[in-house]
């Protein structure tokens, strides 16, 4: 590998690149899925390759190959330089990177139990026990559970002398019950939807979920939702569980603080951002209760690493401080444009993709509203919604609409009637401005979100969101015709 790296960087330099970097990446994934008592999927996937990124006369070029041979490094470096020269045909001025110093270092995700060393039998037993518990509930049509493991071994090197070796290990799992009748399909997941919880860490995180212990109540709620009344429409006080707060952060704070999006470079796919740089330091993004950090150092977060894919060390920086916009997610290209150095959030999905600005762990700091039950007790009338099932937000990250799996009406400080198909909608700064209470540290969970899409060709991103249940006043709920 060292020869390949040296050949690639030498070739890029020789062919006229003012800057070049290379990432050599090997990624392994295993997934086990049990559905209705049968092993539906058991997979072991491996992908390896390298990508070379060059700046030639201030214009970007990138090429990537799965053939890990030194001669291929020459070819791919040459191709990247040719592409960069073509980029120069439509260039406004030279791209300049910040002055992040090159680093030589290693980083490994800390873990206790290697998820790839856990036997298939052991994983299968965990999923089958959860499946059996769900199967005991009459009326469940589909029972599903999965565990995942990921390992990414990557080396980053640059013509400025950086050399960083990292090993990122991920583990996760979850279950879901689906109940169906003629007109309804209702689902309940544990601990969250779309695969459950995923962390950087070992299989101990999956064991801690105790899927079987939560399986029966998960299935019972899916069935109960079939006959629950429809969520009422109107304006009311809304309490979100921590999983939904996590997705609210993702869509309405994480994405709009990506500085490449702010500068318009995602306009043709995912959109732009209302958080334009003229608002930095002055925009009231939310109430004084709302403080949000981008923390790539948080233990166990799915957005936790040692260095980003430009060789910038992981950092914890504030994005929103007591309701005021104070920061962005940045890269080495974008940060200097607001007079800063990159805070290290440029990451690529695989060896074949370029680094884009991606969320790290975007965390809402816990508040002082105590437990979820304390918060409900403090709410005279409203609705509590739990676990996401639908999401959509406009291209500037202002108008959003979310749907959750379950809602409960709140009357006189008590959780009462279960309602189905709860939805809510709002405008980002108004919504966060209506946040008047956030539960305390004991309710705070760092959720992993493994399916964040961005860029063309589209890349997936693994990101994290720390959140506790929170209350929002006067929110429009029950959207649409049912």
């Amino acid at each position, binding site marked *: 590998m060292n020869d390949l790296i040296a050949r690639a960087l030498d070739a890029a330099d020789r062919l006229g690149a003012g800057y070049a970097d290379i990432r050599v990446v090997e990624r392994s994934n295993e997934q086990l899925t049990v559905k209705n008592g049968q092993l539906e999927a058991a997979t072991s996937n491996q992908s*390896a390759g390298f990508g070379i990124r060059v700046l030639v006369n201030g214009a970007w070029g990138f090429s990537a190959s799965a053939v890990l041979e030194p001669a291929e490094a020459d070819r791919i470096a040459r191709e990247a330089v040719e592409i960069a020269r073509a980029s120069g045909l439509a260039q406004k001025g030279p791209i300049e990177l910040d002055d992040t110093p090159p680093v030589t270092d290693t980083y490994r995700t800390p873990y206790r139990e290697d998820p790839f060393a856990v036997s298939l039998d052991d994983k299968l037993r965990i999923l089958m026990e959860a499946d059996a518990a769900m199967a005991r509930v009459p009326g469940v049509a589909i029972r599903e559970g999965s565990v995942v493991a990921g390992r990414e071994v990557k080396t980053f090197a640059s013509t400025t002398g950086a050399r960083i070796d990292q090993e990122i290990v991920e583990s996760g799992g979850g279950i879901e019950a689906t109940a169906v009748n003629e007109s309804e399909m209702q689902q309940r997941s544990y601990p969250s939807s779309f695969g459950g919880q995923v962390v950087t860490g070992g299989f101990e995180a999956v064991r801690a979920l105790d899927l079987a212990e939560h399986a029966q109540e998960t299935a019972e709620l899916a069935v109960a939702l079939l006959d629950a009344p429809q969520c009422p429409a109107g304006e009311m006080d809304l309490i979100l569980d921590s999983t939904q707060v996590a997705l609210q952060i993702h869509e309405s704070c994480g994405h709009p603080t990506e500085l490449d999006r702010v500068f318009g470079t995602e*306009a043709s796919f995912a959109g732009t951002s209302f958080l334009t740089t003229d608002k930095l330091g002055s925009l009231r993004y939310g109430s004084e209760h709302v403080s949000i950090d981008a923390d790539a150092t948080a233990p166990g977060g799915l957005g936790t690493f040692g260095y980003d894919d430009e060789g910038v060390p992981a950092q914890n920086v504030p994005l929103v401080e007591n309701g005021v916009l104070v920061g962005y997610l940045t890269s080495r290209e974008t940060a200097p444009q607001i007079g800063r150095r990159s805070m290290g959030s440029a990451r690529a999905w695989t060896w074949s993709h370029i680094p884009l600005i991606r969320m790290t762990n975007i965390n809402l700091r816990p508040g002082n509203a105590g437990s979820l039950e304390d918060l409900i007790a403090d709410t005279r009338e409203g609705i509590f919604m739990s676990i996401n099932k639908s999401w959509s937000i406009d291209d500037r990250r202002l108008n959003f609409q979310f749907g959750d799996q379950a809602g409960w009406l709140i009357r006189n400080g008590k959780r009462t009637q279960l309602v189905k198909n709860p939805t809510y909608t709002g405008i980002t700064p108004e919504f966060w401005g209506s946040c008047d209470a956030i539960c305390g540290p004991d309710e705070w969970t760092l959720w992993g979100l493994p399916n964040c899409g961005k860029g063309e060709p589209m890349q997936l991103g693994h990101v994290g969101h720390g959140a506790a249940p929170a209350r929002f006043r006067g929110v429009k709920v029950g959207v649409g015709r049912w």
Partner: protein
Amino acid sequence: MVATLSDLDELLDRALAHSTAQHAEALVLAQDLALTRFATNRIHQNVREHDATLQVRVIDKHRIGVASTNKLDEAGIRDVVQRANAIAERSAPNERAAILPEPDGRTYDPDLGYVSRTADADPELRAIGARAVIAAGEAKGLQSSGSFSTSVMTIAVANSLGVRAKHRSTKAALLTVMMDGFASGAASGYAHAGSTDVEELDAEALGVEAATKGDRMRGAGDLEPGDYEVILEEYAVAGLLEYLSYIGFSGLAHEEGRSFMDLGKRLMGENVSIWDDGQDPAGLPAPIDFEGVVRRRVDLVEAGVAKSVVHDAATGSRAGTGSTGHGLPAPNLLGPMALNLFMAPGSTPRDELVSGVKRGVWVTRFHYINPVHPKKAILTGMTKDGTFLIEDGRVSRPLMNFRFTQSIPEAFSDVRAAGDQTRVLPGEFFGAARVPALHLGSFNFTGVTATEGGE
């Protein structure tokens, strides 16, 4: 790296030869993708990737194991088969899923949709195309963003029951969003085209289309959300169809009662017919699926009636229909997928659709569509890049973007007219659709975007 179709045969043979299981399937997916991306009137990302993955599925006593690798030397091939075998040996039997397709004798063109000049397109060609788009935007004072991609996709499948299929195709796609800045209420326009032949993409014409639309969007005003007649351009129709396919056209979703497709029941207006056909060169063809089955045309909605769903080998076996050639790579938790969608055109000249609208909304495209209730096919999303008020049969003024929350079969139950032309559009996430523009009697807009961003 896999270089030719004949190399694929050898690769498949070597993979199958290593398997000791009762049955085995080898699938090779090779991609050579180049994409030039531009924003704020300059190229800011410009990439190329070469990759090929071998996936092996083994089935032994109804136990299934699947493994993949992109290391395609002898050691890599041996390792991936061993990993698949090891998983199968330790797995629990699953009779309902342990099904491979058998050869059905149907033929297809292995080069259908392959155009060598697309495969050979160089970065200068894409840069010149991007520059033409940018120039059209600059002529109207707009900032252009977009992407121009060219790619070759090769698929090869063989299994121990005798299936052997391979196909290569090319795709060229050019899209642009043009804006007059990023402030609230900024004007924006859009154009998008896809073809197997890069020479069929007229960058200048697409630039003019987006620039004209963006220019007309300046000064967008408010309109109360509510039910309105709508003209949906082809972009908007294709976006809705892609999501209908995702939530409802799958045999697995139907089998599990999750789909809105109540077969035999009228779901939409008599003038609505939707089908899937991977062999039709009028789309972006893909004549075989990921199990090596030759794709059949499947009539999904015929004259408004839900007629069929698509199947892979497993769901087709359980449904008694056999595979329709819509399998995804194993193990397939999503179920089969309709990826080559068509919607029947009407008889109204496209430019005359608007004349039938007394008061309504013109929608160029939708953004961030997602299902709210799959069983009722209720989707939500935002309008984008060209939303206008229609009054007395004419476009009168630009509007701020709306959020919709709408059952699509309900909306398609009142198709007042369909354009007499269709347009083929690459999917946002997968596949492609060839669709007309539509005039719908009612569409439920449930919100409007903010005019200000929290000042």
